[in-house]
């Protein structure tokens, strides 16, 4: 109940955040601008439009997760709204989970809006939409659950700007974890190779959620893979949320 109350409030707060509308505006520009890219790729236009719209849903979802997520807890401390909330008979983890659920609800609405606009645009251009397109969106949302959990952890540890930089770096690394295992031979036996191998197993591999080109090109992806990717996101998200709750539990505010 208390988690839901916090979540409703977080949703309401985020809906009133101007950053959200600026990002949604740019998402619309990219979605409708995708046709421009399609013109320069003869005969591939619908594939390009699908690819670019999925990229836009992913990119703007991640930007909202990072910018809103990293300021979520920090803002409460900075504006001292936290004082009267934490002094209520509630667990601190309920506060953290409420903030998280509220932002995820917002991201669900934003993802649905962007998907709806993209889908209508593809259909208006004469294209067709397969199940794969929507599975790709589902995995983008899974990625957002994970990135938001990292942002929330950082929000209870650092300032929004530093937090955003770190989450953005984690996002880049998360898309390049394959490189960690495929270093050139001259790295064999070095500490750097060992550290990167450890990092490979710790840093979540965000490429697992990227089935955009398969969706654009109509290449099927098994439901088993999708289920595995959802489990992967849930496991990492759980770990980051537990860490965020533990950090916040000990925090003096």
């Amino acid at each position, binding site marked *: *109940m*208390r988690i839901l*109350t*916090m979540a409703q*409030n977080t949703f*309401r*707060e985020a809906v*009133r955040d101007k950053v959200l509308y600026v990002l949604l505006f740019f998402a619309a520009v990219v979605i409708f601008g995708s046709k421009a890219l399609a013109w320069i790729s003869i005969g591939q236009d619908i594939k390009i439009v699908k690819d670019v719209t999925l990229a836009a849903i992913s990119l703007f979802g991640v930007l909202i997760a990072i910018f809103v997520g990293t300021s979520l807890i920090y803002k409460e401390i900075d*504006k*001292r*709204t*936290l*004082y*009267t*909330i*934490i*002094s*209520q*008979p*509630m*667990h601190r983890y309920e506060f953290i989970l409420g903030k998280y659920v509220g932002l995820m609800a917002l991201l669900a609405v934003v993802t649905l809006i962007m998907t709806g606009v993209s889908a209508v645009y593809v259909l208006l251009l004469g294209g067709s939409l397969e199940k794969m397109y929507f599975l790709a969106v589902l995995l983008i949302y899974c990625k957002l659950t994970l990135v938001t959990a990292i942002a929330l952890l950082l929000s209870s540890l650092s300032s929004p700007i530093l937090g955003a930089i770190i989450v953005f770096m984690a996002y880049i690394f998360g898309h390049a974890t394959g490189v960690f295992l495929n270093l050139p031979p001259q790295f064999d036996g070095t500490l750097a190779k060992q550290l990167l191998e450890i990092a490979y197993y710790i840093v979540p591999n965000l490429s697992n959620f990227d089935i955009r080109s398969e969706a654009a090109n109509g290449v099927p992806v098994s439901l088993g893979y999708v289920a595995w990717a959802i489990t992967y996101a849930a496991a990492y998200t759980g770990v980051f949320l537990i860490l965020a709750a533990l950090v916040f539990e*000990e925090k*003096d*505010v």
Partner: protein
Amino acid sequence: MDAIRTENLSKVYKGIGKRTVHSLTELNLTVGEGEVFGFLGRNGAGKTTTIKILCSLLKPAGGTAYIFGENARNRATRRLLGYLPEQPYFYEYLTPKETLDFYGRLRGLSAAERARDWDRLSEMLELREIAGDRIKSFSKGMRQRVGFAVALVGDPPLLILDEPMSGLDPLGRRMIRDIIRHQHELGKTIFFSSHVLSDVEQLCDRVGILVKGRLSKQGQIDELLGGQDNQRETLEDYFLREQQKGDLQL
């Protein structure tokens, strides 16, 4: 039973570099049930730190705080207290009615209890006329009224108020004084910090004076100031004397 009891409560902050700042040193404080207790001290003496520990915003470095005999760190204990921070901040986009409903939900009150609380508190704090306005447009005095209403949500037996009169005009101060008196009459325990010593003298049964994180004195106002006769010292003189004594000792 004591409404508040602290045993050797200490708080240390890590300063810049390796320097540590002792904000509170072995504080042993008792506030009886039904008392109005004034908590005095200069800026930085440790008043807000004590209040934040009582409300579980800060973790003590040592010692324990008890609220009605229960450890203040227990979640259920916080049901017994209402807290008004110095310069309270609320979600700016909510109205007073939405704000009280939000805190009622966090306290686990039912819809009927929340509606009753709104009726009771909106009348007591004159919130009805501004019930639908967003807090972002409110003056300091209006915010303080909302803050007091939030502290009273769920009708807790202990009120912890940090500088409740700070920054208010004479009318606002009068209103807060009247509410404190009214809550006292209802049997509530009120623990508040203040720099306005005339208000403390008017309202409090007992006071505690904090000097540089240590409790220099606590007791009945009449006993500390020398009874009711003409020789009675003002609280201001007494307070300043205690500060000077503390400065010499520390």
